[in-house]
């Protein structure tokens, strides 16, 4: 049953599909082209994706959510794509981080010994970007599985890019876990299909009821996605994988890839299982894990001595905040506070993505300048690379949640909805987590206030690398001033009416 | 029950017996060479009987041809696999070498 062309399509020039097509095309071209052209192709694709994301954001902001039916087949037969406020925010995050990381890597990989890395970096990164974009559009649970695999393989290959034995092991550990998670997810798809006979998220959401099958599916999928997002008991793979990769890759993995699986978790919980199955106990359990993750991850970050490991462990803590959303949504009676919790969580995801990418890029500058990311080498860069120090400080401010950064807005709204919902035990997360975060951020920064006269700094860092990291950090601060728009995008509840959508 | 059905059952059963014997040989024989012997000979014969039995109940001529083809391919596969294993036993390679046929 092919759908007739919606008339407004031609009036509206935005084409969301391009966000998937451009990176994939770029990836293929990068693969086929000789090496000299790869960087150019990569940068061009990045710029195109970014501009398209910006245009699409504007369109979604003005006209509301969109729904595509791939191949002209409506659900449940075909595969749909949904683009609403939530997905567009993540798309935009990916576009901003992706563009700046691409610019950064164009310079990062230009050193002679890095050339061989650049050759593999560009196609894989563009594939990953395309996969992430399609993940944020995903509306079909089996499609989600395939996309996740695409993300998983390209991310693991990127994590292994530097080729040291530590990074290879870390990449394999990450990949095996991802794969196990995918298997669990696939079985979950099976359970959902067994209950509803449907694969589209929105259709499943409308017909799904409780029952052991759905509960099982929810459990399997949740565990799968929690593993990929590195929530507390499954966090062990993250620090080595993110800490050992080259700087731009770390930025991508930490800033974007774990957000991808988290996004899917949100979709699963709030679209597929929106009115069934989900018990407050499960939500509370996830919240508890998030709380532990905040404290444990931040504590681990404090006791590390390598900059990149600190940043990587900090990811575990910062990701923990995101999971506080679940108990808040399911235990807050007031819809206004639900929206608040929802916004807080997305804000946290976005500002963490920006800040973490900035931190990793800055760490890359540090490594390139001093050859190591031992914290003590920070002492040398304060004078040589004031911009990098400033970047670390700005991103740190956002992580700590000090005003007026994006992190502050997130923590503010989070604490507000925690207090409003009466879930007192959760308040420990923003308060204690903020303290611990401050502890490790200042552990990094305090080193830059010590001048070490004994040895001088060796390498230089290119202008582009410093500035792109700085820009990311600035964005993570500035997003604190644009809370209104984000709230607007998220506040609209999205229901798609699918023409001909039938439920057996 | 028609006569060709009885024949079919008979051939299939005898094929099964050969398979059983081959498997027994695989378990009981002492060394690789004799095991190979049991496997390839008995199993190929068993497969041949089963194919024969199935031909009696096959619906069409192409189907029967396919069945025979299956048997032939299996014979080629098992004989060459047998050769590789035997060769491997006879001239053991130094480094990680292995014997493995193709996917089919």
């Amino acid at each position, binding site marked *: 049953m092919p759908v007739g062309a919606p008339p407004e399509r031609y009036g509206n020039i935005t084409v969301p599909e391009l966000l998937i097509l451009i990176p994939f095309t770029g990836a293929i071209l990068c693969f086929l082209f000789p090496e000299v052209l790869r960087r150019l192709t990569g940068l061009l694709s990045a710029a195109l994706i970014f501009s398209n994301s910006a245009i699409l954001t504007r369109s979604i902001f003005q006209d509301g959510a969109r729904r595509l039916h791939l191949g002209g087949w409506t659900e449940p037969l075909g595969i749909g794509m949904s683009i609403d406020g939530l997905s567009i925010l993540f798309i935009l995050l990916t576009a901003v981080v992706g563009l700046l990381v691409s610019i950064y890597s164009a310079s990062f990989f230009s050193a002679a010994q890095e050339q061989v890395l650049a050759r593999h970096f560009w196609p894989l990164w563009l594939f990953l970007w395309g996969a992430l974009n399609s993940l944020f559009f995903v509306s079909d649970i089996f499609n989600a599985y395939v996309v996740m*695999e695409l993300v998983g393989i390209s991310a693991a*290959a990127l994590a292994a890019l530097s080729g*040291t*034995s530590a990074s290879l*092991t870390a990449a394999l550990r990450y990949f095996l876990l991802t794969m*196990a998670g*995918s*298997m669990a997810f696939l079985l979950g798809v*099976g359970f959902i299909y067994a209950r509803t006979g449907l694969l589209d998220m929105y259709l499943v959401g409308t017909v799904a009821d409780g029952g052991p099958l759905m509960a099982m599916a929810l459990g399997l999928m949740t565990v799968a996605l929690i593993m990929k997002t590195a929530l507390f008991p499954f966090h062990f793979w993250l620090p080595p994988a993110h800490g050992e990769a080259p700087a731009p890759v770390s930025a991508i993995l930490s800033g974007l890839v774990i957000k991808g699986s988290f996004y899917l978790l949100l979709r699963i919980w709030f679209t597929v299982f929106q009115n069934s199955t989900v018990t407050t106990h499960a939500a509370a359990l996830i919240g508890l894990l998030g709380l532990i993750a905040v404290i444990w991850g931040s504590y681990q970050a404090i006791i590390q001595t390598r900059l990149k490991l600190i940043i990587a462990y900090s990811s575990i803590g910062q990701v923990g905040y995101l999971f506080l959303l679940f108990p808040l949504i399911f235990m807050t009676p007031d819809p206004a506070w639900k929206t608040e919790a929802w916004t807080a969580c997305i804000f946290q995801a976005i500002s963490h993505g920006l800040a973490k990418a900035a931190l990793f890029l800055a760490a890359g500058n540090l490594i390139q300048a001093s050859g190591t990311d031992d914290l003590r080498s920070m002492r040398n860069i304060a004078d040589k690379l004031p911009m990098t120090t400033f970047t670390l400080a700005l991103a740190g401010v956002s992580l700590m949640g000090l005003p007026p950064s994006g992190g502050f807005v997130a923590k503010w709204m989070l604490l507000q909805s925690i207090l409003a919902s009466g879930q007192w035990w959760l308040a420990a997360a923003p308060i204690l987590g903020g303290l611990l975060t401050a502890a490790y951020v200042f552990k990094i920064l305090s080193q830059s206030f010590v001048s070490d006269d004994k040895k001088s700094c060796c390498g230089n860092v290119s202008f582009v690398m410093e500035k792109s990291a700085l820009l990311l950090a600035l964005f993570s601060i500035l997003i604190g001033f644009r809370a209104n728009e984000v709230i607007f995008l998220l506040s609209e509840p999205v229901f798609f009416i699918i023409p001909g959508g039938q439920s057996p | 029950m028609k006569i060709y059905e009885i024949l079919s059952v008979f051939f299939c059963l005898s094929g099964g017996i050969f398979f059983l014997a081959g498997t027994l040989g695989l378990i009981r024989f002492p060394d690789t060479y004799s095991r190979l012997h049991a496997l390839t000979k008995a199993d190929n014969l068993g497969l041949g009987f089963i194919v024969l039995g199935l031909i009696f109940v096959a619906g069409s001529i192409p189907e029967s041809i396919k069945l025979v083809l299956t048997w032939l391919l299996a014979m080629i596969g098992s004989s060459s696999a047998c050769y590789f294993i035997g060769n491997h036993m006879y001239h053991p390679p130094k480094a990680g070498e292995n014997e493995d046929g193709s996917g089919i």
Partner: protein
Amino acid sequence: MTTVIIYALTATTLFSVGLYGFAIHPDLIRKIVSLNIMAGGAFLFLISLAYHTGSPEVDPVPQAMVLTGIVVTISATAFALCLARRIKEKTGQCLLEHRRKDTET
């Protein structure tokens, strides 16, 4: 007790056994094999659903999904094995417990 139930039960059993194997084996190659058993379980579950539809014809959607899944799994397996070999080459062992032998270059 119907065919579907038997195969679905087998499928979930396979998944659990694979999971157990994945968790218990320190060795990479065994982990990967266990993952493949898990995958087999998930596929079998889907196919048992396809058979379930009652009509003489089998539901093609789960079958298509399994075909896709098989390709994805073999790609992932090959990739993981390649990583494992590289690790063996670098560290001389194929375990995930990484001992920091070589300093970073």
